[in-house]
């Protein structure tokens, strides 16, 4: 009897989770459609977009700088002994450069951005929802979706690529420090080696996909916060699930975008 009850409770909980999952997918899709419907319609709320870009950029800058630097440093330190085994240490700047520019820079920056920003947006909009601030905005004949959501998604979409380019340079600087520690390489040689191996075309798909990642971070954070319910508990849940969902979506979309890039440019 007890086993029967617990297995039926287990099934119900799976059913509820699946329901929640599909509701979320439908909600994200609706939010996405609504974003593209509103983004080209005036008023454009330029001041709000600029404010969010500033805030999000500045808020994330210290953590992405430290992480970018360490990732570059550790990657070079880890790669060096492997290349040394094959006598290919000269390829260290090139291989590290390509890894950072194509994949590590964009994805690591996006994941950190998701952790920092998506939760922040989720918590901010969630608390606005439960304290009726969003209702107050709606009653005052201002569209809260346009003012709160569109501006944040737009800001995230355009600030993340800028941060990514910055992180790529910081990570390459970190890698240089590691190279100097292990090998006696001049900065000119290192720079030339990186520039020789990393072409401009390597950076384009890497940076381009961060527009998508930024969009995902803004979309998920806004969706989770905007639809928060159940008071402060709901705000907490919105904040945490925003990070989990946006990080997971970044990794899934990374896989898809890499596949598309390789399909479009097989020699990439």
């Amino acid at each position, binding site marked *: 009897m007890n086993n029967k009850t617990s297995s039926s409770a287990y099934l119900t909980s799976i059913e509820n989770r699946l329901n929640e999952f599909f509701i979320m997918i439908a909600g994200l899709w609706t939010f996405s459609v609504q974003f593209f419907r509103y983004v080209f319609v005036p*008023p454009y709320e330029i001041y709000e977009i600029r404010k969010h870009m500033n805030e999000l950029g500045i808020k994330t800058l210290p953590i992405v700088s430290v992480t970018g630097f360490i990732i570059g440093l550790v990657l070079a330190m880890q790669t060096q002994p492997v290349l040394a085994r094959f006598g290919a240490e000269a390829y260290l700047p090139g291989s590290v450069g390509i890894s950072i520019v194509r994949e590590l820079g964009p994805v690591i920056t996006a994941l950190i951005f998701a952790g920092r920003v998506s939760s922040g947006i989720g918590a*901010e909009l969630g*608390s*606005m929802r439960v*304290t*009726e*601030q969003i*209702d*107050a*905005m*709606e*009653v*005052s*004949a*201002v*569209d809260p979706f346009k003012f709160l959501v569109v501006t944040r998604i737009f800001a995230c979409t355009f600030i993340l690529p800028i941060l990514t380019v910055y992180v790529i340079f910081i990570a390459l600087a970190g890698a240089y420090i590691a190279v100097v520690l292990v090998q006696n390489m001049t900065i000119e040689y290192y720079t030339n080696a990186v520039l020789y191996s990393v072409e401009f075309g390597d950076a384009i798909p890497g940076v381009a996909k961060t527009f998508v990642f930024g969009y995902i971070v803004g979309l998920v954070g806004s969706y989770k916060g905007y639809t928060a319910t159940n008071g402060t508990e709901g705000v907490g849940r919105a904040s945490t699930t925003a990070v989990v969902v946006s990080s997971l979506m970044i990794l899934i979309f990374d896989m898809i975008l890499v596949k598309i890039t390789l399909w479009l440019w097989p020699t990439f």
Partner: protein
Amino acid sequence: MVEIYNLKKAFNSHVVLDDVSLKVDEGENLVVFGRSGTGKSVLLKCMVRLMEPDYGKIIIDGKDVLSLDIKQLNNLRKQIGFLFQSAALYDSMSVRQNLEFPLIRHFNFTPEEREQKIINVLEKVSLLEAIDKMPSELSGGMKKRIGLARSIITEPKLMLYDEPTTGLDPITSKEISYLILELQKSLNMTSVVVTHDLLCAEIIADRAIVLNNGKVQYEGSIPELTSSNDPFLKNFFSHEFINENKQVN
């Protein structure tokens, strides 16, 4: 000014409003009483379509609210002020930014005109010194006053108050009630006030209704309702009086 016919609203199987009909004349102050969970706030939210009713008709200023498209609805909302229970000030904005928020979006005032309007409305609620403060720096009563100032800055024809004195001490609550009355008179607004506060109702109300079991069960002036021999009203208002007296003592 406001006509509501056969309004129904349910949340799943829980019926909150069941065939509510009422009228509010222009310039009139209507107070809505009722036990917690009887749908008083839901009624206000349906009036501005923050919630969609399941059935019924709402006419405000001659317009059928439920049949308006979003543009028409927003035009109507510009003529309606709403004071939320929590005041709902935008906490990322200062008092000045809170007040200029609707002005920037709906009117073509010059910055000087805007500033003058903000100063005027803050003087009305006696909080000019709070102009550059953030909502987190304000007390509950101050937040209510600023919320009120933000609602009236666009000089709406209709004001909806959702428990304007809840959570305030009796003196502040009385001050807010008189302030609402004063603004009402000076701006000639119609208002619907949801409250549990009998003292507030006595100060503000021209007429009151009592919601019970999702319906408008009683209607009349405050003295008529409080002196009624109906068991429910006797019970309801004796509790209100006890609460009032407790608060005052």
